[in-house]
């Protein structure tokens, strides 16, 4: 069998890096959020493959929890974006600089 842990991990890392790139470069809050989901999924992929190649089911349990938490997180995050948009009329990170002193 040629395809092993390394291959899956490589995919996972690439996915993570793409997500990171999205977070850093895209300006739309929603797209940034989607990129975050990508990063989260890459972690899921890594965990599942570890679980598979280490013969332990605990990794899958962890992924299960991650998916659950991610669902909750997406709901809250999106609600925050909506609330923010209502207040600022924008979902553009460059318009949201109130963290500057």
């Amino acid at each position, binding site marked *: 069998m040629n395809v092993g842990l390394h291959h899956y991990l490589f995919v996972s890392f690439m996915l993570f890096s793409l*997500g990171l790139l999205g977070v850093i470069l895209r300006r739309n809050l929603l797209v940034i959020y989607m990129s975050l989901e990508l990063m989260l999924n890459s972690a899921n992929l890594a965990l599942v493959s570890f679980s598979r190649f280490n013969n332990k089911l605990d990794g899958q349990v962890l992924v299960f929890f991650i998916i659950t938490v991610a669902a909750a997180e997406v709901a809250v995050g999106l609600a925050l974006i*909506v609330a923010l948009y209502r207040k600022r009329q924008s979902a553009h990170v460059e318009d949201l600089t109130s963290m500057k002193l």
Partner: protein
Amino acid sequence: MEQINNLVSGGAAEDVLFYVFAALTLLCAILVVANPFSRSPVTSAMFLVLTIISMSGLFLLLQAFFLAAVQILVYAGAVMVLFLFVIMLLDLKEEQRRKIKLFGLIAGLVSVGIVVSIFVKSLASIKPAAAGPTLEGETYALGKLLYTQYTLPFEIVSVLLLVAMVGVILLSKKKLE
């Protein structure tokens, strides 16, 4: 189930499938982040759905059938619908082509590049268990584990979902008081 199992564990076929799904995943992910044809969030969302679906294919290859199902149900089903709803609710225009700051681009690419290089470097040091994969798709075992050893986290997560629900309702009320 048995048939699929036979099909995918056929060695060469399995490898081919992996490359297909992996390529699909990465391609779609690229299109989520940087689509040369459209900067609309809707396109990004749709490609994200595709990414997730192809990823669940990878899950299948890893014998995680239950998770593959959950992935599609929760992500492709629930989460992405939520995204699309919000996009439509906000009536977002296409992202304007603002001037991309050269410095930001370079900094972003460089930092991501460093991350990638560190990952790749660390890949070399990873050694899988010597025995090789023996675990077969054990949805039953997973459920058992979830309801015995991980009962408490499971319950806590359910509370978390409840809290998230309450929070979302509170946040999305018209007036924040």
